[in-house]
């Protein structure tokens, strides 16, 4: 009896780790939506959830992920239309900068990426996508990028000073405030730009 029990206990974990039996099938991928003909695949949604460590996404989370991918596809389509691309040497420079800023060597970068469910290859793709996005936005909507006036800076400073009287002088914080306001305005402008593109795109979600 004891022998059997040992055998059973030893066999169970082994079974759990065994490769699937021959003939087992797995779904790999399918199209969940198209944006002016550009497909969005289910695996892209899976990757978003993996990176955000969401095991069981809700319906709303899934819809939000699809929407984010649709926005990304709109930008990629605009990049193609405007012939925006990123060269290999630009990618190498960007990667070198990221390593330097984060004090990482190649192995360190690979480790950090793996924690985010990225391989070097998939990360390069993501990096290239982000660079293309910035360039496309700059080309397609140049005048809507955040512009910051002195009056806006002063107003923002006054607001911050009221909330926290111990902050430094206006002059000492001016550049910092300018950067923050510029980023905010640019983000809003980018959102509006994507919204405008979406209004004119043909987006089809799989039934």
């Amino acid at each position, binding site marked *: 009896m004891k022998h059997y029990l040992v055998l059973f206990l030893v066999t*169970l974990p082994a079974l759990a780790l065994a*490769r*699937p039996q021959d003939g087992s099938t*797995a779904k790999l*991928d399918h199209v969940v939506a198209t944006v002016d003909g550009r497909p969005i695949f289910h695996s892209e949604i899976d990757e978003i959830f993996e990176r955000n460590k969401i095991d069981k996404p809700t319906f709303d989370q899934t819809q939000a992920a699809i929407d984010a991918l649709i926005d990304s596809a709109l930008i990629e389509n605009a990049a193609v239309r405007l012939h925006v691309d990123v060269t290999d040497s630009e990618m190498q420079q960007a990667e070198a900068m990221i390593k330097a800023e984060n004090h990482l060597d190649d192995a360190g970068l690979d480790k950090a990426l793996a924690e985010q469910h990225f391989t070097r290859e998939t990360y390069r793709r993501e990096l290239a996508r982000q660079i293309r996005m910035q360039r496309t936005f700059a080309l397609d909507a140049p005048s809507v990028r955040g*512009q910051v*006036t*002195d009056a806006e800076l002063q107003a923002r400073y006054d607001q911050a000073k009221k909330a926290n009287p111990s902050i430094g002088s206006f002059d000492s914080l001016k550049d910092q405030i300018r950067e923050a306001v510029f980023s905010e305005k640019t983000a809003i402008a980018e959102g509006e730009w994507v919204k405008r593109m979406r209004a004119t795109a*043909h987006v089809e979600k799989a039934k």
Partner: protein
Amino acid sequence: MKRLAFVLLLAACGGNGTTGDRPTLPPVTTPTGPAPEVPWNQLEGAVKTVTVKGDDATQTAAAKQMLAAEVGKPLDRARLRDELTQVLGIKGVGDVNASAVQLADGVELVVALVPARNLHALTAKEVGGQDIPLPGLLSTAVGLPLDPSLLAKVVAELRAEYLAKGYTDVQVAWKDTDVGTNQVDVSIEITPGKATTITTVEFKGNAHAKKADLIKAIAGTLVASSPWNSDLVDRASLLLSAYYYDHGFINVAVDPPKPSGGASPVTFAITEGDQFRVGKIDVKGVPDADAKKYLAMVTVKKGDVFSRKLMQDGIVKIQDAAKTQVEPVTKIDAKKKTIDVTLDLTKH
């Protein structure tokens, strides 16, 4: 799996009826019924073969060629996506579905092609208006598989036509309706909105620049009595900013005007900010004699009104002469309204 576990459980309970000291394993049984479905990342081994399922031999052959590079590699859905996107570009392919099968010595990649629906009828019209002639691109599309990328091009073409007439809010969309077996009707709908015409070009807030100079700065973009063109308005905004940057107003903000939906002036609201002058200029990273030579190539001097263009022209000249990149480092003194510029040649 459940069946096998059950057999093991029987064994653990001595349920096989044997009484000897040595355990005897129950006979190995082969599970019957369909093979289980497992998560894709549990499959083991590299892609051994690629199978493409589809009704059209030309399409399947083309798809197989596009997927051939998968053989010998472990499954990678990011890479596969690129290949599936190519497959979707094959004429007549409407959708794809990828799956995999565990083999004894690897994985079989299976891609099923779904045929595109055929275009049965095609119309284009303004919403609430009459039919409009179809662009030439679509003249032979009826009867062929629906091609979303072709429709996207036509939509872009129609939109551009309306934008050129000042319809800045034009919406062009296509809708499809299934009719019969694998047939689809497509209607392109245009909602033009209101057209805007520029009567005159005006400026607000230009305390330090004459209207005539600003009009000259945006020459070649906006013309009075012409349809509104958002691209040209954007370009004019950039040219106005550039004008101010070249006249020392480094914090200028130009608020691009919005179309009014009728005949009206286009008015640029300008917040000029302070005017800055050049403070100290020096060249770093080369011997003194070279620094002096390069400095002479910059036509703006200390005390001059700052000009981005003149500074840029000088930098280009230095780069040509020194055969290296120049990094301009600026230090702005908001109180003195000066900009110190160091042209750094050391980093490259």
